[in-house]
Protein backbone atom coordinates (compact mmCIF):
# COMPACT_ATOMS: atom_id res chain seq x y z
CA UNK A 1 0.00 0.00 0.00
CA UNK A 2 2.81 2.39 0.84
CA UNK A 3 4.58 1.52 -2.40
CA UNK A 4 1.37 2.34 -4.28
CA UNK A 5 1.07 5.67 -2.51
CA UNK A 6 4.74 6.40 -3.09
CA UNK A 7 4.45 5.59 -6.78
CA UNK A 8 1.44 7.86 -6.93
CA UNK A 9 3.40 10.64 -5.31
CA UNK A 10 6.53 10.12 -7.39
CA UNK A 11 4.62 10.10 -10.66
CA UNK A 12 2.58 13.19 -9.99
CA UNK A 13 4.46 15.22 -7.45
CA UNK A 14 6.33 18.37 -8.23
CA UNK A 15 9.94 18.42 -7.19
CA UNK A 16 9.71 19.08 -3.50
CA UNK A 17 13.40 18.68 -3.09
CA UNK A 18 14.67 22.07 -4.13
CA UNK A 19 16.41 23.52 -1.17
CA UNK A 20 16.71 27.07 0.00
CA UNK A 21 13.17 28.29 0.43
CA UNK A 22 9.89 27.38 1.98
CA UNK A 23 6.95 27.00 -0.35
CA UNK A 24 3.20 27.17 -0.18
CA UNK A 25 0.76 24.46 0.74
CA UNK A 26 1.07 22.22 -2.35
CA UNK A 27 4.55 20.83 -1.58
CA UNK A 28 3.60 20.47 2.10
CA UNK A 29 0.61 18.34 1.19
CA UNK A 30 2.52 16.18 -1.26
CA UNK A 31 5.44 15.72 1.15
CA UNK A 32 3.44 14.74 4.24
CA UNK A 33 2.89 11.15 3.14
CA UNK A 34 6.57 10.62 2.35
CA UNK A 35 7.36 12.16 5.73
CA UNK A 36 5.03 9.67 7.43
CA UNK A 37 6.60 6.91 5.39
CA UNK A 38 10.03 8.03 6.55
CA UNK A 39 8.77 8.05 10.16
CA UNK A 40 7.66 4.44 10.35
CA UNK A 41 10.45 3.10 8.18
CA UNK A 42 13.06 5.08 10.04
CA UNK A 43 11.91 3.92 13.48
CA UNK A 44 11.52 0.36 12.24
CA UNK A 45 15.03 0.44 10.80
CA UNK A 46 16.54 1.76 14.02
CA UNK A 47 14.74 -0.82 16.14
CA UNK A 48 15.71 -3.64 13.78
CA UNK A 49 19.36 -2.61 13.99
CA UNK A 50 19.10 -2.30 17.79
CA UNK A 51 17.49 -5.73 18.06
CA UNK A 52 20.19 -7.34 15.94
CA UNK A 53 22.92 -5.65 17.97
CA UNK A 54 21.16 -6.73 21.18
CA UNK A 55 21.10 -10.36 20.07
CA UNK A 56 24.74 -10.14 19.00
CA UNK A 57 25.82 -8.71 22.34
CA UNK A 58 23.89 -11.34 24.27
CA UNK A 59 25.56 -14.08 22.25
CA UNK A 60 28.99 -12.49 22.65
CA UNK A 61 28.52 -12.12 26.40
CA UNK A 62 27.42 -15.72 26.69
CA UNK A 63 30.24 -17.16 24.56
CA UNK A 64 32.99 -15.06 26.07
CA UNK A 65 31.89 -15.54 29.65
CA UNK A 66 32.07 -19.30 29.29
CA UNK A 67 35.69 -19.20 28.11
Amino acid sequence: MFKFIRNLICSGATSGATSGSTSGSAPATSAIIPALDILWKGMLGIFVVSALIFITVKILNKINSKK
Partner: protein
Amino acid sequence: MDFLINGIIAITWQQAVMWIVGALLIYLAIAKKLEPALLLPMGFGAILVNLPFSGAINQYNPALGKDVIGIVDWLFNEFIDVSEAMPLLLFIGIGAMIDFGPLLANPKLLFFGAAAQAGIFLTVILAVLLGFPLVDAASIGIIGAADGPTSILVSQILDSGYIGAIAVAAYSYMALVPIIQPAAIKMCTTKKERAIHMSYNPESVTKRTKIIFPIAVTIIAGLVAPASVSLVGMLMLGNLIRECGVLNTLSDTAQNVLANLITLLLGITIAASMRAESFVRLETLMIMGLGLVAFFLDTVVGVLFAKLLNVFLPEGKKINPMIGAAGISAFPMSSRVVQKMGLEADPTNHLLMHAVGANVSGQIASVVAGGIILSIVPLFI
Protein backbone atom coordinates in the same frame (compact mmCIF):
# COMPACT_ATOMS: atom_id res chain seq x y z
CA MET B 1 40.95 57.26 -1.60
CA ASP B 2 37.81 55.32 -2.55
CA PHE B 3 39.56 52.01 -1.95
CA LEU B 4 39.73 52.86 1.76
CA ILE B 5 35.98 53.16 2.18
CA ASN B 6 34.70 50.68 -0.41
CA GLY B 7 34.38 48.00 2.25
CA ILE B 8 32.58 50.31 4.68
CA ILE B 9 30.01 51.57 2.20
CA ALA B 10 29.29 48.03 1.02
CA ILE B 11 28.14 46.83 4.46
CA THR B 12 24.58 45.51 4.46
CA TRP B 13 22.28 45.27 7.47
CA GLN B 14 22.19 41.52 7.04
CA GLN B 15 25.95 41.35 7.43
CA ALA B 16 25.72 43.48 10.55
CA VAL B 17 23.16 41.02 11.94
CA MET B 18 25.61 38.20 11.30
CA TRP B 19 28.31 40.06 13.20
CA ILE B 20 25.94 40.14 16.15
CA VAL B 21 25.18 36.44 15.69
CA GLY B 22 28.90 35.71 15.58
CA ALA B 23 29.51 37.78 18.69
CA LEU B 24 26.65 35.99 20.43
CA LEU B 25 28.13 32.59 19.63
CA ILE B 26 31.51 33.74 20.93
CA TYR B 27 29.85 35.05 24.09
CA LEU B 28 28.02 31.76 24.66
CA ALA B 29 31.28 29.89 24.13
CA ILE B 30 33.41 31.96 26.49
CA ALA B 31 31.07 33.36 29.12
CA LYS B 32 28.59 30.49 29.32
CA LYS B 33 31.03 27.74 28.28
CA LEU B 34 28.48 26.25 25.85
CA GLU B 35 30.35 23.94 23.47
CA PRO B 36 33.23 26.42 23.20
CA ALA B 37 35.26 24.19 20.89
CA LEU B 38 32.65 24.61 18.17
CA LEU B 39 30.77 27.78 18.91
CA LEU B 40 33.85 29.99 19.20
CA PRO B 41 35.31 29.21 15.75
CA MET B 42 31.81 29.24 14.26
CA GLY B 43 31.13 32.65 15.76
CA PHE B 44 34.43 34.06 14.61
CA GLY B 45 33.99 32.49 11.19
CA ALA B 46 30.55 34.08 10.89
CA ILE B 47 32.19 37.47 11.30
CA LEU B 48 34.99 36.61 8.84
CA VAL B 49 32.70 35.58 6.00
CA ASN B 50 30.32 38.49 6.48
CA LEU B 51 32.78 41.30 6.00
CA PRO B 52 32.28 42.97 2.60
CA PHE B 53 34.56 41.53 -0.09
CA SER B 54 36.03 39.23 2.55
CA GLY B 55 39.22 37.50 1.45
CA ALA B 56 38.25 34.52 3.60
CA ILE B 57 35.73 33.44 0.95
CA ASN B 58 35.99 33.16 -2.82
CA GLN B 59 35.89 36.52 -4.58
CA TYR B 60 36.08 37.43 -8.24
CA ASN B 61 38.80 39.99 -8.77
CA PRO B 62 38.00 41.96 -11.94
CA ALA B 63 41.47 43.50 -12.07
CA LEU B 64 43.08 40.07 -12.05
CA GLY B 65 40.31 38.59 -14.14
CA LYS B 66 40.00 35.46 -11.98
CA ASP B 67 38.48 34.01 -8.85
CA VAL B 68 40.60 34.39 -5.75
CA ILE B 69 40.09 31.39 -3.51
CA GLY B 70 39.25 32.10 0.11
CA ILE B 71 40.44 29.72 2.84
CA VAL B 72 37.00 29.21 4.41
CA ASP B 73 35.39 28.33 1.09
CA TRP B 74 38.34 26.11 0.20
CA LEU B 75 38.06 24.21 3.48
CA PHE B 76 34.30 23.82 2.96
CA ASN B 77 34.59 22.71 -0.67
CA GLU B 78 37.40 20.22 -0.10
CA PHE B 79 36.53 18.79 3.31
CA ILE B 80 32.76 18.99 3.49
CA ASP B 81 31.21 19.56 0.06
CA VAL B 82 33.26 17.07 -1.95
CA SER B 83 34.08 14.42 0.59
CA GLU B 84 32.29 15.08 3.89
CA ALA B 85 35.71 14.27 5.33
CA MET B 86 35.66 16.51 8.37
CA PRO B 87 32.60 15.16 10.18
CA LEU B 88 33.59 11.60 9.30
CA LEU B 89 37.15 12.00 10.58
CA LEU B 90 35.79 13.59 13.73
CA PHE B 91 33.79 10.44 14.30
CA ILE B 92 37.01 8.47 14.61
CA GLY B 93 37.96 10.67 17.52
CA ILE B 94 34.49 10.43 19.07
CA GLY B 95 34.50 6.64 18.75
CA ALA B 96 37.86 6.49 20.48
CA MET B 97 36.40 8.43 23.41
CA ILE B 98 33.38 6.18 23.97
CA ASP B 99 33.37 3.32 26.46
CA PHE B 100 30.57 0.96 25.47
CA GLY B 101 31.13 -1.13 28.62
CA PRO B 102 27.96 0.02 30.47
CA LEU B 103 25.91 -0.73 27.37
CA LEU B 104 27.47 -4.15 26.80
CA ALA B 105 26.84 -4.99 30.45
CA ASN B 106 23.16 -4.09 30.06
CA PRO B 107 22.31 -4.51 26.38
CA LYS B 108 18.57 -3.94 26.70
CA LEU B 109 19.41 -0.25 27.01
CA LEU B 110 19.96 -0.32 23.23
CA PHE B 111 16.23 0.06 22.75
CA PHE B 112 16.10 3.30 24.72
CA GLY B 113 18.67 4.77 22.39
CA ALA B 114 16.45 3.70 19.50
CA ALA B 115 13.27 5.15 20.97
CA ALA B 116 14.88 8.51 21.70
CA GLN B 117 15.52 9.10 17.99
CA ALA B 118 11.79 9.49 17.32
CA GLY B 119 12.09 13.25 17.67
CA ILE B 120 14.07 13.29 14.42
CA PHE B 121 11.27 11.83 12.35
CA LEU B 122 8.47 13.68 14.11
CA THR B 123 10.32 16.94 13.43
CA VAL B 124 10.60 16.00 9.77
CA ILE B 125 6.81 15.84 9.67
CA LEU B 126 6.51 19.19 11.47
CA ALA B 127 8.98 20.81 9.10
CA VAL B 128 7.05 19.51 6.11
CA LEU B 129 3.83 20.90 7.58
CA LEU B 130 5.55 24.27 7.94
CA GLY B 131 6.31 24.24 4.24
CA PHE B 132 9.90 23.05 4.05
CA PRO B 133 10.67 20.74 1.11
CA LEU B 134 11.28 17.15 2.16
CA VAL B 135 15.06 17.34 1.73
CA ASP B 136 15.32 20.37 3.97
CA ALA B 137 12.80 18.93 6.42
CA ALA B 138 14.91 15.78 6.76
CA SER B 139 18.04 17.89 7.26
CA ILE B 140 16.26 19.89 9.96
CA GLY B 141 14.87 16.77 11.61
CA ILE B 142 18.35 15.30 11.99
CA ILE B 143 19.12 18.05 14.49
CA GLY B 144 17.24 15.71 16.82
CA ALA B 145 20.10 13.23 16.49
CA ALA B 146 21.84 15.54 19.01
CA ASP B 147 25.03 14.90 17.13
CA GLY B 148 26.81 17.72 15.33
CA PRO B 149 28.80 15.73 12.75
CA THR B 150 25.74 13.66 11.82
CA SER B 151 23.67 16.80 11.35
CA ILE B 152 26.32 18.42 9.18
CA LEU B 153 26.92 15.28 7.15
CA VAL B 154 23.26 14.53 6.45
CA SER B 155 22.38 18.12 5.54
CA GLN B 156 25.42 18.33 3.28
CA ILE B 157 24.73 15.07 1.43
CA LEU B 158 21.06 16.01 1.02
CA ASP B 159 22.26 19.37 -0.28
CA SER B 160 20.15 21.40 2.09
CA GLY B 161 20.47 25.16 1.86
CA TYR B 162 20.39 25.49 5.64
CA ILE B 163 23.60 23.79 6.77
CA GLY B 164 24.73 26.83 8.75
CA ALA B 165 21.50 27.16 10.72
CA ILE B 166 21.33 23.40 11.25
CA ALA B 167 24.89 23.26 12.59
CA VAL B 168 24.32 26.21 14.94
CA ALA B 169 21.08 24.66 16.20
CA ALA B 170 22.59 21.20 16.69
CA TYR B 171 25.59 22.35 18.69
CA SER B 172 23.71 25.01 20.67
CA TYR B 173 20.97 22.66 21.80
CA MET B 174 23.45 19.90 22.64
CA ALA B 175 24.99 22.35 25.07
CA LEU B 176 21.54 23.28 26.40
CA VAL B 177 20.53 19.70 27.21
CA PRO B 178 20.79 20.43 30.97
CA ILE B 179 18.03 23.00 30.47
CA ILE B 180 15.88 21.35 27.80
CA GLN B 181 15.70 17.83 29.18
CA PRO B 182 14.65 18.51 32.79
CA ALA B 183 11.68 20.53 31.54
CA ALA B 184 10.62 17.77 29.15
CA ILE B 185 11.12 15.04 31.76
CA LYS B 186 9.12 16.84 34.45
CA MET B 187 6.34 17.42 31.94
CA CYS B 188 5.73 13.69 31.48
CA THR B 189 6.75 12.07 34.75
CA THR B 190 5.71 12.28 38.38
CA LYS B 191 8.13 12.54 41.28
CA LYS B 192 7.19 9.00 42.25
CA GLU B 193 8.17 7.77 38.79
CA ARG B 194 11.45 9.68 38.89
CA ALA B 195 12.18 8.00 42.22
CA ILE B 196 11.90 4.45 40.84
CA HIS B 197 14.94 2.48 41.85
CA MET B 198 16.64 0.22 39.36
CA SER B 199 19.01 -2.50 40.48
CA TYR B 200 22.29 -2.70 38.66
CA ASN B 201 23.16 -6.27 37.73
CA PRO B 202 25.68 -5.96 34.94
CA GLU B 203 26.63 -8.90 32.79
CA SER B 204 30.32 -9.53 32.67
CA VAL B 205 31.94 -8.00 29.63
CA THR B 206 35.21 -9.40 28.36
CA LYS B 207 37.82 -7.61 26.33
CA ARG B 208 37.04 -9.91 23.42
CA THR B 209 33.43 -8.72 23.44
CA LYS B 210 34.56 -5.11 23.42
CA ILE B 211 36.76 -5.82 20.39
CA ILE B 212 34.16 -7.74 18.39
CA PHE B 213 31.37 -5.26 19.22
CA PRO B 214 32.43 -2.39 16.91
CA ILE B 215 33.02 -4.80 14.02
CA ALA B 216 29.63 -6.43 14.51
CA VAL B 217 27.80 -3.10 14.79
CA THR B 218 29.36 -1.83 11.57
CA ILE B 219 28.34 -4.95 9.67
CA ILE B 220 24.79 -5.00 11.08
CA ALA B 221 24.13 -1.31 10.54
CA GLY B 222 25.76 -1.43 7.11
CA LEU B 223 23.59 -4.30 5.93
CA VAL B 224 20.34 -2.65 7.10
CA ALA B 225 21.22 0.92 6.13
CA PRO B 226 24.15 0.97 3.70
CA ALA B 227 24.28 4.76 3.63
CA SER B 228 25.23 4.66 7.32
CA VAL B 229 28.46 2.72 6.73
CA SER B 230 30.65 5.83 6.59
CA LEU B 231 29.11 7.26 9.77
CA VAL B 232 28.94 4.06 11.78
CA GLY B 233 32.18 2.76 10.32
CA MET B 234 34.27 5.75 11.37
CA LEU B 235 32.69 5.77 14.83
CA MET B 236 33.37 2.08 15.29
CA LEU B 237 36.89 2.32 13.85
CA GLY B 238 37.71 4.83 16.54
CA ASN B 239 36.21 2.55 19.16
CA LEU B 240 38.12 -0.48 17.87
CA ILE B 241 41.36 1.48 18.00
CA ARG B 242 40.54 2.26 21.64
CA GLU B 243 39.53 -1.26 22.67
CA CYS B 244 42.10 -3.38 20.81
CA GLY B 245 44.76 -2.56 23.41
CA VAL B 246 47.65 -2.49 20.95
CA LEU B 247 47.20 1.00 19.55
CA ASN B 248 47.32 3.14 22.65
CA THR B 249 49.21 5.97 20.99
CA LEU B 250 46.79 6.00 18.05
CA SER B 251 43.87 5.96 20.45
CA ASP B 252 45.35 8.85 22.37
CA THR B 253 45.97 10.73 19.11
CA ALA B 254 42.42 10.10 17.91
CA GLN B 255 40.86 11.23 21.19
CA ASN B 256 42.96 14.33 21.55
CA VAL B 257 44.97 15.65 18.60
CA LEU B 258 42.69 14.45 15.80
CA ALA B 259 39.46 15.35 17.56
CA ASN B 260 40.70 18.78 18.58
CA LEU B 261 42.18 19.56 15.17
CA ILE B 262 39.07 18.57 13.26
CA THR B 263 36.83 20.34 15.76
CA LEU B 264 38.84 23.53 15.33
CA LEU B 265 38.68 23.42 11.54
CA LEU B 266 35.07 22.23 11.42
CA GLY B 267 33.84 25.22 13.36
CA ILE B 268 35.40 27.76 11.05
CA THR B 269 34.54 25.74 7.95
CA ILE B 270 30.85 25.64 8.79
CA ALA B 271 30.97 29.41 8.83
CA ALA B 272 31.13 29.21 5.03
CA SER B 273 27.43 28.42 5.15
CA MET B 274 26.69 31.29 7.51
CA ARG B 275 26.74 34.04 4.94
CA ALA B 276 24.17 36.74 5.53
CA GLU B 277 22.17 36.08 2.38
CA SER B 278 21.56 32.45 3.36
CA PHE B 279 21.34 32.85 7.15
CA VAL B 280 19.38 36.03 7.78
CA ARG B 281 15.91 34.91 6.89
CA LEU B 282 12.76 33.73 8.56
CA GLU B 283 13.55 30.10 7.86
CA THR B 284 16.58 30.29 10.17
CA LEU B 285 14.36 31.19 13.11
CA MET B 286 11.98 28.40 12.16
CA ILE B 287 14.89 25.95 12.05
CA MET B 288 16.07 27.06 15.50
CA GLY B 289 12.55 26.48 16.78
CA LEU B 290 12.24 23.09 15.10
CA GLY B 291 15.62 22.03 16.45
CA LEU B 292 14.43 22.77 19.97
CA VAL B 293 11.25 20.81 19.29
CA ALA B 294 13.33 17.88 18.02
CA PHE B 295 15.31 17.69 21.26
CA PHE B 296 12.12 18.02 23.27
CA LEU B 297 10.36 15.26 21.36
CA ASP B 298 13.38 12.95 21.62
CA THR B 299 13.18 13.26 25.40
CA VAL B 300 9.41 12.90 25.60
CA VAL B 301 9.24 9.83 23.36
CA GLY B 302 12.14 8.21 25.20
CA VAL B 303 10.37 8.70 28.52
CA LEU B 304 7.04 7.49 27.15
CA PHE B 305 8.73 4.39 25.73
CA ALA B 306 10.04 3.53 29.18
CA LYS B 307 6.60 4.11 30.68
CA LEU B 308 5.06 1.85 28.04
CA LEU B 309 7.47 -0.93 28.99
CA ASN B 310 6.56 -0.44 32.64
CA VAL B 311 2.97 -1.42 31.83
CA PHE B 312 4.21 -4.93 31.17
CA LEU B 313 6.83 -5.14 33.89
CA PRO B 314 6.12 -6.40 37.42
CA GLU B 315 6.64 -4.30 40.52
CA GLY B 316 10.25 -4.36 41.58
CA LYS B 317 11.44 -4.57 37.99
CA LYS B 318 10.06 -1.28 36.74
CA ILE B 319 12.26 1.03 34.70
CA ASN B 320 12.83 4.59 35.81
CA PRO B 321 11.28 6.52 32.88
CA MET B 322 14.14 9.02 32.90
CA ILE B 323 16.38 6.31 31.46
CA GLY B 324 14.40 6.76 28.25
CA ALA B 325 15.41 10.41 28.19
CA ALA B 326 19.07 9.42 28.43
CA GLY B 327 18.76 7.69 25.07
CA ILE B 328 19.60 10.83 23.13
CA SER B 329 23.10 11.14 21.78
CA ALA B 330 24.19 14.12 23.89
CA PHE B 331 26.89 12.32 25.86
CA PRO B 332 27.62 12.76 28.73
CA MET B 333 25.29 15.66 29.49
CA SER B 334 22.11 13.63 29.22
CA SER B 335 23.24 10.89 31.58
CA ARG B 336 24.34 13.50 34.12
CA VAL B 337 20.94 15.19 33.89
CA VAL B 338 19.19 11.88 34.61
CA GLN B 339 21.53 11.05 37.50
CA LYS B 340 20.97 14.48 39.02
CA MET B 341 17.19 14.34 38.66
CA GLY B 342 17.15 10.84 40.10
CA LEU B 343 19.01 12.05 43.18
CA GLU B 344 16.65 15.01 43.50
CA ALA B 345 13.67 12.64 43.56
CA ASP B 346 15.39 10.26 45.98
CA PRO B 347 18.88 10.90 47.35
CA THR B 348 19.57 7.16 47.39
CA ASN B 349 18.64 6.64 43.74
CA HIS B 350 21.75 6.32 41.62
CA LEU B 351 20.88 5.91 37.97
CA LEU B 352 24.20 6.83 36.41
CA MET B 353 25.28 3.48 35.02
CA HIS B 354 21.87 2.84 33.47
CA ALA B 355 21.80 6.38 32.09
CA VAL B 356 25.31 6.08 30.64
CA GLY B 357 24.38 2.80 28.95
CA ALA B 358 21.31 4.39 27.37
CA ASN B 359 23.31 7.49 26.44
CA VAL B 360 26.01 5.58 24.53
CA SER B 361 23.35 3.49 22.83
CA GLY B 362 21.90 6.78 21.66
CA GLN B 363 25.20 7.55 19.99
CA ILE B 364 24.90 4.39 17.92
CA ALA B 365 21.20 4.94 17.23
CA SER B 366 21.72 8.54 16.14
CA VAL B 367 24.27 7.67 13.47
CA VAL B 368 22.08 4.78 12.32
CA ALA B 369 19.20 7.26 12.11
CA GLY B 370 21.36 9.54 9.98
CA GLY B 371 22.19 6.66 7.68
CA ILE B 372 18.55 5.65 7.42
CA ILE B 373 17.55 9.21 6.55
CA LEU B 374 20.20 9.18 3.81
CA SER B 375 18.90 5.82 2.55
CA ILE B 376 15.19 6.66 2.54
CA VAL B 377 14.85 10.36 1.69
CA PRO B 378 16.47 10.19 -1.78
CA LEU B 379 13.82 7.64 -2.74
CA PHE B 380 11.25 10.42 -2.53
CA ILE B 381 13.14 13.02 -4.51
